């Protein structure tokens, strides 16, 4: 591990990020064409209660962007709040510059600030898009200040039962390249989550859902697997 290198990365990611912001908004202003308009999007992909007999969580997965067809500024936030303990289990915020690199794909670069379980500051590189056969795909690599490399991979699919009743199977895998002693992180798959959500689109923008998640967590301390019921809503505007 060479911390200095990664501090270097973080330090440099800030001006890159500022430049990206300028690109996103600058391009919109320079080209007054209507085909290069800036749109704003915010989606509550998951906004839900998740739990079983032992766990009661409030979980969110929110992402949004502002920008044109090719250059966007993304914000993403994920986390959960543990009701019985009154604490946030996890909470983070990502700011990413996103560029359309292929028809269905955007490359993303930026920073992540984690607030819980501890305050960290990571660089982020990732891709997001629609894979063949309609798999919504998101893959990101996080590089921490200490040089730890973590990864996150998400895959989702939509099955239409009717035009408004939609089943969404979803898989999320979190990995770590190394053991991270102070965080209790064990190298390998740290968290595996597979679930199914059944939503009803009252309008496209708003859909309450129910479902379940199977969650497997691996840390230096323990190995857990749980099944949780979920209920919440998906909304965007």
């Amino acid at each position, binding site marked *: 591990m060479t911390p200095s290198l990664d501090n270097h990365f973080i330090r440099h990611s800030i001006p890159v990020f500022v430049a990206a912001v300028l690109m996103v908004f600058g391009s919109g202003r320079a080209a007054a064409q209507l085909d290069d308009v800036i749109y704003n999007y915010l989606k509550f992909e998951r906004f839900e209660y998740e739990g079983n007999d032992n766990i009661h969580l409030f979980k969110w997965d929110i992402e949004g962007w502002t920008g044109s067809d090719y250059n966007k500024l993304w914000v993403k936030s994920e986390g959960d709040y543990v009701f019985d303990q009154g604490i946030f289990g996890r909470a983070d915020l990502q700011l990413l510059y996103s560029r359309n690199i292929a028809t269905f794909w955007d490359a993303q670069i930026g920073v992540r600030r984690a607030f819980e379980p501890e305050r960290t500051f990571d660089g982020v590189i990732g891709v997001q898009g629609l894979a063949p056969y309609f798999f919504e795909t998101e893959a990101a690599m996080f590089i921490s200040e200490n040089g730890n490399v973590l990864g996150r991979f998400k895959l989702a699919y939509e099955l239409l039962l009717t035009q408004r009743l939609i*089943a969404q199977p979803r898989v999320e895998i979190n990995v770590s390249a190394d053991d991270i002693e102070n965080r209790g992180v064990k190298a390998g798959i740290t968290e595996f989550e597979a679930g199914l959500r059944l939503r009803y689109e009252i309008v496209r923008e708003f859909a309450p859902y129910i479902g379940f998640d199977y969650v497997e967590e691996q840390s230096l301390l323990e190995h857990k697997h749980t099944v949780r019921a979920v209920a919440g809503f998906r909304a965007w505007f």
Partner: protein
Amino acid sequence: MQTLNALIRQCRIAAFWFALLSALPARAGTYDLVIDQKAVNVTGRERTALVANGSLPAPTLRWREGEEVTLRVTNRLDEPTSIHWHGIVLPYDMDGVPGISFPGIPPGETFTYRFKLRQSGTYWYHGHSAMQEQLGLMGAIIVEPVKGDTHTYDRDYMVILSDWSDEKPHRVLSKLKKQSDYYNFQKRTVFDFFRDLSDKGGKETLADRLAWGEMRMDPTDIADVTGYTYKFLVNGQTSEANWTALFKPGERIRLRFINGAAMTHFDVRIPGLKMRVIQADGQDVEPVDVDEFRIAVAETYDVLVEPRETRAYTIFAEAMDRSGYARATLAPRRGMRAEVPALRPRPLVSLAEMGAAHGMNHGSSDHGAHAATDHSPATETGTSGHEGHDMAGMDPAAMPDMNHAISSHASHEGHAMADHGQEHADTGHRVLSYADLKSAEKHADWREPDREITLRLTGTMNRYIWSFNGKKYSEAEPIRLKYGERVRFTYINETMMNHPVHLHGMWQDLDNGKGPFNPRKHVVNVKPGETVHVDVPVDAPGEWAFHCHLVYHMETGMFRKIIVEYPDTAVKKGA
């Protein structure tokens, strides 16, 4: 004094006669159009429409061939506006496209258009700023031929089809950008998959789903914006309001169909009546008798009908994706109405078409591409048995056995054919196709083209980006043409949408194998996966717009500027 008065009177009389005589061969009309907002209630909720002279749609303008028209267009909106005279041949600075022909009409100002009419027929006009046509800013133009009408008729009605949404166009576009299938509520479900499995077998069904999945396209994507938000109108009236045209049995009626919709192709029929198509895009064609025709956005078709019975007839215009319809009535008396047919099942885009577009089943030769597209039905319901619950009510033209009807036209290989229709052997239901269109007049300027420009019609539905040759308007250089040349444009539709391609200022002679009698059009609809050739006589110097007439495609980049230069000298602005 008296002699002076007499002289003045004589002069006045002479002036009167002079004016009268000179007015006859070349009328010079002045028309005022005031563009304003107006509260309308189409769906039960009050919304703001854009109107001309208080009228939705805008008033019909009746002109005469040879007339020198002066149009004073006043903008009472709080945003810029413009009016484009669709299909009218005129100087480019009168064409009304902001940013190309002129700067647009700022709020509170009046712009005066002046041009001489060198054509006759049915045309239309519409706003060309900020998707204003979607808000109702469009109306009909009738230019009477100086030599008199080719056809005789007793009555003459405009039938302007349109799509009205309570949502503002920018909101619609914003939704499409965020979720491109927002308005599609006719997608294939899990149950359709199982139905296909049992109807067609696992192999075919899986191959079909995998092919679409690989392309990340949806065969149900027939229309981007649908009846979910649209009310389809005839002359600004809903189906419930039932706009009615009167006739006396035995009369011959001319119906001038104009598709003034922003996004909707319609399939038009009048059950119980044959329609004789006499004009397409304002140009006389050899009459064709049909039961149905598809009218792409911005096209016009004039038809003659002769209702003989004392009963009402429904003018039925189904949206191409069957998400709704516009309806009007032909009746001997007001208040009469005829049965309104049920909507037919929505079609699917076929893999064969997309195969043509994606080079999966033909060679790289241009010729191969035509062959692949010309034979494939655009709207194939045959591959999806589940849509055929009620075969009796199905679109006969889209049924599987149309394939042999199509192949009878295979001898025209390499020309724009249509698929939507041909005579259906069993029912005799005849649907107009581009192959049927033959100019009534031989084009004097017909010759082999000097050169060819290939334009691929491209886009990504998923991101809602539309383009030519993969480049949006803002990214592309203008297309440069030389005055006097004849250019063949080859449109290769690589997308799965229909694109009504509109060239401003000059005609597109659609190559359907009729040579000097090829139909002369201002809008040429190019179906999914299809290759179409048009010849453009480059006879209008200046800068012109060229675009897909689906308003949200145009707005998101499927647009080009065309510059027509004199050989060796650049055209100067205002020249």
